[in-house]
C-alpha cells in the first residue's frame, strides 16, 4: 500500500445477477448474423442479425461499426431480412420497411445497374418487381409464377435477366417479358443418396451468362444460362452450402457452408500463360463453428457471418499490398457501441437489448479483503425492471439519468421518456406522454450530470436540449446542423458542470456547444477516422476523444486547442501494440480525485492512462500487468509508463467508476454465448 496510486476497491457485475438476467443478455449477444451486404463505393458493410438489428461497418475506418443505418449511410445496396420485415437500407439514408403481410419474403435483390429496381422473391413462388423512388417503393409487376418458393435471386449485371433459385430448380427470367426462359433442374443426389429435396440456397449471375448456384446437397454448380445446361459441378461439403458472393471483377467468389467452412473459388488460367481460364477451388477457411449463413466479397477480403454471431473478415493476402490494419484477420463479435448506461447515485445499470431494457441494482458487501479476493455479498444484485418495447422496432439507444429517476430510449420512429419513483424497495414507472413531434428518432440520448437536462441527437441532425423538472419537461433549444451537412450526431458528451456539450458524427469533426449560452463554442479539427468514444474531464473541461484508428486526443475546451499532453503523445506516437488492438475504445471516464488519470476500455482490456508518467516507446513492454508489490520502488518506477493496462476482464462490455473507490465492469464470457447457440452440425471425428 505504499504504491504511488490508490487501491480503489472495485466491484463488478458480471451480467449483474440472477440467472434470468444472464440469459436475457445472452439473447442479445447470441443473435446470429443473417445477412451481410457489401457496398464498394462507400466501402461499407451492412450486417443484419436474427434479432432484427442492422449494423453498418465502415471498412475504411478499421472496420468501425457505425450506427444502425438511418442517416448518412449512402448504401446503394443492402438487403436484409429481419424478423418478417424487410429493411431496405439505401438511397438517401431512408430506411424503407416493407411489411410482408402474409408472405414471408425470402430474398430481395436490387439491380446493380439501376438502383431503382428491386426484386423480391416470395414464398408462393412469385417474383415481384418493385420500383424504388427516393421517397417510396411501389409494386411494379409480378413475373411468371413458379411452383415452389423462391429462395434466392440474382440480377444479371446488365439488368436484363434474373436467376431465381428455388427448390430443385433454378429459373432464369427475362426481365422485360417477365417470363421464365430456362428452368435448370438441380440434381438431388447427395453423396450417392437421393435427398428428398435440393434447395438452391444461393445463385449468382455473372456477366458472361454463367449462373453459379449453391444448394443443400453441398454442391457449387456452374450453369450456362443461354442454353440452360450444367457446365461444371463441385461437391464441396457434406452439408448445405448456404451462401455465395461474387467479387465485382467476377474473378473470384466465396461460398459458405453449414459446416462453418468458407471456400474461395478463383478464376485462374489453366496454364500459366494461357488465356483460357477456369474456376478453381483455391482456399478453404474454417473460422466459424456454426452455419455460415451469409458471405460477402470485398475487393480485398472475404467476409462471412453466421449463426455463431461472429463477423469474420478474412483479407486476401495477394490483394493486400502493404501490411497494415487490413492485412489481419478480423473477428467482430461484440458491438462497437456502449449498450449499458449507469446511474452512479443509485448504483443502477441499464442494459439495452434489441427489444427491451433491463434495470439492475448492484449488490453490496460489508467485507474487505486484499487484492484478488472475491468478497462475500451481503446483498445480491436485483433485477428491478424489464421494459419491453411495443411493436417490432428495435431500440436504437437508451440512457438512464445519473440520479436514476429518468430512463429514455428511442426506436426508429418513436422516442420514450419514463420517470422512475423509488419508494423503499418498490419502484414505479410513469411514462412521460406527449413527446414533441421533433423527438421522433434519436441516435443518442444523454442526461446532464445533475439530471436536469436531457440532450437528444435526432436523426435529422439536430441536437435538442430538454429541461427536466419534476415529472414534466420543457424543450429549451435545438442546435440545428450546420448548413450543408446532413450528418447526424451519434456520440454525445457533457461536462460535469453542465456547461459544455460535445457532439460527434461518424465522419465530420466534433462540435462543442456552450449549453448556458446555447451556441456553438468551437469545432475540434477534423480527423480522418470516426470517433468511437469521448468524454469531458471534470474541472479541466478537457475533451478526450478516441478514434477508430486507436488514436486518443485531449482537447481543451476553454482554450480551444489540443492540450500539451496530447501534442506530446502525437509527437511521440502511440505504442505499436496499442495501435494494433482489435476493438475500438467504447467508453472513457475519469476519476474525480485524480485529474491525471483517464480510464478507458475496449472489449479486451481496460486501461488507465496516467498523464504524469512517461509515455511508452516501442521498445518498452506495453502490457505489463500491474507490477508485483514485492518489487522495489525503484524498479517499479523505472518500468512504469503512462499506460496501465489490465486484461483480467474480457470480453468487457462496459466499465465505469461508480465512486472514488468502486469500479463496475460488465463482462460477457464467450463460453456463455457459445453455450446458448444451437448445436452445430455434428462431424464425425476419428476416434469419437
Amino acid at each position, binding site marked *: 500500500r505504499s504504491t504511488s*496510486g490508490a487501491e480503489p476497491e472495485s466491484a463488478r457485475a458480471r451480467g449483474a445477477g440472477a440467472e434470468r438476467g444472464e440469459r436475457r443478455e445472452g439473447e442479445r449477444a447470441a443473435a446470429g448474423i443473417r445477412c451481410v451486404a457489401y457496398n464498394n463505393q462507400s466501402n461499407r458493410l451492412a450486417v443484419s442479425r436474427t434479432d432484427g438489428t442492422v449494423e453498418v461497418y465502415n471498412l475504411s475506418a478499421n472496420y468501425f461499426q457505425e450506427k444502425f443505418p438511418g442517416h448518412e449511410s449512402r448504401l446503394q445496396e443492402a438487403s436484409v431480412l429481419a424478423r418478417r420485415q424487410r429493411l431496405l437500407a439505401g438511397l438517401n439514408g431512408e430506411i424503407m420497411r416493407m411489411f410482408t403481410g402474409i408472405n414471408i419474403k425470402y430474398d430481395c435483390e436490387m439491380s446493380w445497374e439501376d438502383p431503382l429496381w428491386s426484386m423480391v422473391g416470395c414464398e408462393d413462388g412469385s417474383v415481384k418487381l418493385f420500383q424504388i423512388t427516393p421517397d417510396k417503393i411501389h409494386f411494379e409487376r409480378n413475373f411468371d409464377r413458379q411452383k415452389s418458393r423462391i429462395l434466392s435471386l440474382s440480377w444479371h449485371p446488365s439488368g436484363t435477366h434474373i436467376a431465381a433459385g428455388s427448390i430443385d430448380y433454378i429459373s432464369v427470367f427475362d426481365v422485360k417479358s417477365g417470363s421464365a426462359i430456362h428452368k435448370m433442374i438441380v440434381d438431388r443426389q447427395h453423396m450417392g443418396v437421393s435427398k428428398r429435396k435440393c434447395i438452391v440456397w444461393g445463385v449468382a449471375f455473372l456477366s458472361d451468362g454463367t449462373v453459379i448456384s449453391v444448394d443443400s446437397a453441398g454442391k457449387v454448380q456452374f450453369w450456362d444460362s443461354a442454353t440452360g445446361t450444367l457446365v461444371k459441378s463441385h461437391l464441396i461439403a457434406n452439408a448445405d452450402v448456404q451462401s455465395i458472393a461474387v467479387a465485382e471483377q467476377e474473378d473470384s467468389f466465396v461460398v459458405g457452408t453449414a459446416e462453418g467452412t468458407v471456400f474461395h473459388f478463383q478464376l485462374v488460367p489453366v496454364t500459366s500463360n494461357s488465356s483460357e481460364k477456369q474456376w478453381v477451388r483455391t482456399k478453404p477457411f474454417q473460422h466459424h463453428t456454426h452455419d455460415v449463413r451469409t458471405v460477402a466479397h470485398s475487393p480485398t477480403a472475404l467476409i462471412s457471418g453466421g449463426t455463431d454471431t461472429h463477423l469474420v473478415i478474412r483479407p486476401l493476402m495477394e490483394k493486400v499490398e502493404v501490411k497494415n490494419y487490413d492485412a489481419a484477420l478480423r473477428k467482430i463479435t461484440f458491438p462497437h457501441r456502449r449498450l449499458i448506461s449507469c446511474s452512479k447515485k443509485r448504483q443502477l445499470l441499464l442494459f439495452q437489448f434489441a427489444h427491451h431494457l433491463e434495470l439492475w441494482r448492484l449488490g453490496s458487501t460489508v467485507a474487505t479483503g486484499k487484492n484478488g479476493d472475491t468478497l462475500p*455479498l451481503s446483498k445480491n444484485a436485483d433485477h428491478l425492471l424489464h421494459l419491453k418495447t411495443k411493436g417490432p422496432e428495435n431500440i436504437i439507444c437508451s440512457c438512464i439519468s445519473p440520479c436514476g429517476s429518468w430512463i429514455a430510449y428511442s426506436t426508429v420512429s418513436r422516442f420514450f421518456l419514463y420517470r422512475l419513483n423509488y419508494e423503499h424497495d418498490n419502484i414505479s414507472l410513469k411514462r412521460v406522454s406527449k413527446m414533441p413531434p421533433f423527438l421522433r428518432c434519436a441516435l443518442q440520448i444523454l442526461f446532464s450530470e445533475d439530471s436536469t437536462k436531457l440532450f437528444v441527437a435526432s436523426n435529422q441532425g439536430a441536437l435538442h436540449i430538454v429541461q427536466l423538472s419534476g415529472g414534466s419537461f420543457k424543450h429549451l433549444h435545438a442546435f440545428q446542423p450546420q448548413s450543408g451537412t446532413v450528418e447526424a450526431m451519434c456520440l454525445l458528451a457533457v461536462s460535469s458542470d453542465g456547461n459544455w456539450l460535445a457532439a460527434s458524427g461518424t465522419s465530420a469533426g466534433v462540435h462543442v456547444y456552450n449549453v448556458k449560452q446555447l451556441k456553438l463554442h468551437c469545432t475540434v479539427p477534423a480527423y480522418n477516422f470516426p470517433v468511437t468514444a469521448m468524454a469531458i474531464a471534470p474541472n479541466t473541461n478537457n475533451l478526450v476523444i478516441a478514434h477508430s484508428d486507436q488514436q486518443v486526443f485531449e482537447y481543451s475546451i476553454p482554450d480551444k486547442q489540443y492540450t500539451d499532453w496530447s501534442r506530446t503523445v502525437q509527437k511521440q506516437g502511440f505504442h505499436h501494440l496499442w495501435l494494433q488492438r482489435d476493438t475500438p475504445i467504447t467508453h472513457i471516464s475519469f476519476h474525480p480525485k485524480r485529474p491525471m488519470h483517464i480510464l478507458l476500455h475496449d472489449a479486451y482490456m481496460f486501461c488507465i492512462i496516467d498523464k504524469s508518467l512517461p509515455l511508452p516507446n516501442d521498445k518498452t513492454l506495453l502490457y505489463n500487468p*500491474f507490477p508485483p508489490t514485492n518489487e522495489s520502488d525503484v524498479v517499479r518506477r523505472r518500468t512504469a509508463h503512462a499506460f496501465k493496462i489490465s486484461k483480467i476482464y474480457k470480453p468487457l462490455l462496459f466499465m465505469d467508476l461508480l465512486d472514488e473507490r468502486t469500479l463496475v465492469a460488465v463482462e460477457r464470457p464467450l463460453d456463455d454465448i457459445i453455450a446458448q447457440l444451437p448445436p452445430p452440425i455434428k462431424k464425425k471425428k476419428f476416434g469419437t
Partner: protein
Amino acid sequence: MAALEEEFTLSSVVLSAGPEGLLGVEQSDKTDQFLVTDSGRTVILYKVSDQKPLGSWSVKQGQIITCPAVCNFQTREYIVVHDNKVLRIWNNEDVNLDKVFKATLSAEVYRILSVQGTEPLVLFKEGAVRGLEALLADPQQKIETVISDEEVINEIMVCVKTSHGNYFAYVQMFNSRILTKYTLLLGQDENSVIESFTASVDRKFISLMSLSSDGCIYETLIPIRPTDPEKNQTLVRSLLLKAVVSGNTRNGVALTALDQDHIAVLGSPQAASKECLSVWNIKFQTLQTSKELPQGTSGQLWYYGENLFMLHGKSLTVIPYKCEVSSLAGALGKLKHGQDPGTHVMPRFVNWETPQGCGLGFQNSEQSRRILRRRKIEVSLQPEVPPSKQLLSTIMEDSEKHIEVEVRKFLALKQTPDFHTVIGDTVTGLLERCKAEPSFYPRNCLVQLIQTHVLSYSLCPDLMEIALIKKDVQLLQLCLQQFPDIPESVTCACLKIFLSIGDDSLQETDVSMESVFDYSNSVHDEKMEEQTEILQNGFSPEEDKCSNCDQELNKKPQDETKESTSCPVVPKRAALLNAILHSAYSETFLLPHLKDIPAQHITLFLKYLYFLYLKCSENATMTLPGIHPPTLNQIMDWICLLLDANFTVVVMMPEAKRLLINLYKLVKSQISVYSELNKIEVSFRELQKLNQEKNNRGLYSIEVLELF
C-alpha cells in the same frame, strides 16, 4: 491430366440401333456438329453443345443405309451410301433424301472417308479406293479387287484384313497411290483375336494400336515411306498395355487414340464387372480416369473434337474429354507472379530421360525408354571409359576380390550425378551374376553398396532374396535397417531365418549390435530382485489370485523371476530380432505370413518380447537402454500381432503355458492400473471443479482489485 467430364445424353429419342449398335458417328463441317448414322435408315445431325438435333434425314422404307454418312468438307455436302451401292449427296437445305443427287456404283462400298482439306475417298469392299470426284465422273467404272474381307480405316489409309486368323495391313498413300501390304505377326499368342484397332500418324510412322482378345493393347509401327513397296513386308507388334480389359466381353470392346499419349478403351476391366470407359496414358502406362457405363454399350467408340461418343444403353452418350496441361500452380491458384525469366532453377532431381546420356552414353534415343532397365551388359572396354562403366564391366568378369576393390574405388570417388543409377546398375549386375553362378557371392561389395543409402527394396528385390537363400543374416539385418520398403512377406521370411538359425552359426556372423544393450549386465541384477514386486506399473502379478494357475506358479517364484530376467536369446539373435521390430509393416499384410512361423519359434520370440517388456517397465521412462532400442509400442504391437496370428497354436503348447499366463497377468495388471487411474480421475475432476469454482466468479461478484 486427362479427365472425362460430365456425360450427357445426346438424344432422348431412342435410336433405332441394331444389336451391333450404330453405324457411325462422323464429323461435319462445323466443329460442334456431328452426323450420327443409325443402323436403320436415318442420319441425324446433332449439335453437341446444345445437346439437340439440327436435322434428320431418312431413306425410303425398304432401303437400308450401309455406310455411315460423312461430310464432304470441301463442298459442305453430306454423303451416304444405302443398299451398298447407291450413293446419295445432299446438304442442309434438303429435306427428303429421295430427291437428292444419286449415283449408283458398280461395286459395294465399304466406307467413305472424309478428311478436312481433301476430297472424300470411297473405299470399296474389295479394297480399292477412289476419290469421290473421279468416281462421280464415271460411277460405273470397274473397281479392282484388292482384298476380300473386313477393314478398319483411318486418316492415311490403313486397311486391315482378317483371313483365317492372319492379319494384313494395307497402306495407301493418299497422294502417291502406292499400296503397300504388310503382314501383321501376332507374336507368341497366335490364338488371340484382334478386337479393335485404332491408328494415329506422326511424322514418320503410322502407329497402329490393336486391342486383342487377351485384353492387351499392342502397338505396331508402320513406316509412312515404305522402303520397298513391292515386297510383302511383315510387321511385329509390341505390347503396349497389359490386361486393359477382360478378354471375354459380351458386347465387344473398342479402342481409340485420343492423342499421342492417351487412349480410350471401352470394355469391362474384369469379366464380371460392368462396362467401363477408361483413359490410359500409354507413356506412363497408367489409368488416368474411367467411367462406369452400367447400362452396357455396343462396343463402339468414336472420338471427335474432344468428345467421346458411344451408345450407352439405348441412347447416344457424349462424354467430353479433356487433357489439359495442368500446372500445380494453376491448381493452387497462385499465379500472380510469373516465372522470372532471368533466374534458372537448377534441376535437383534426376531427370528420367538423361541418365543413359551421361551415365552410360547410349545415344540411341529411340530406344531410350525401354533401355533403362535392360542395359548393363553391352559394355565394351574402351581406353577412356568413365569409372562407372569400368565398374560394370568388372562386375561381369572379374573375381570377387577385384570387384570389391573396384567398388571401393568407385565409392571413394565423388558422387557423380548419375551415382544413383550406377549403384543400381552395379547391384543388379552383381545379383544377376550371383544368380548365374551359385558360387559367386560378393558379400562385402553388397554390404558396401547397401551402406550408400541409395538402394531400396524395390530397386533390387533380388538382393534380399539371395540373402535369404544364403541365410546371410548380417546382410538381411542391414537391409532391414536401410530399406524403407520391404514387403511384409520378406520381413517375415527374415524373421523365420533369424529365429531358426543356429546359435553356433550366429557366432560366426558379424551382426551389428547397436540396438542391443547387454542385458546380462550385473548392475541391474540386484535391483531386479526387489523390483519384481513393484514391477509393471506398480502392480505385482502375485497380487492377482483369481487365476487357478497361480498356485502352480507360486510354488516356484524363484524360477519365474529367473526366467523373466535372463534374456531368452543370445545377444546376436536379439540384435537381429530388434531389426525386425524396427521395420515398418502393415498389420493386414503381416498377419497371414506370421502364421507360417513354427510354433516353438513363436514362443521364443514371444519370450524375448516379454523379456523386453519387463526390461522396459524397469525404467521409469519405459524405454530400453542402448543406442537404438525397440520402443515399448513396437514391443507391444508385436506381442499382439504374434498372439493374434498364432493364438490357437500357442495356447495348445505346454511350454508356452507359463508365458501365456505371464502375459495374461500383465494385461490384467494393466487393466487394474487403468481402472485405478479411472477412479483417481473422478477425484481429480472434483478437484478441478473446485478449482474452477474458485476462479469462476459467478454471475455477480464483488472483488478487490489493487490497481496502482
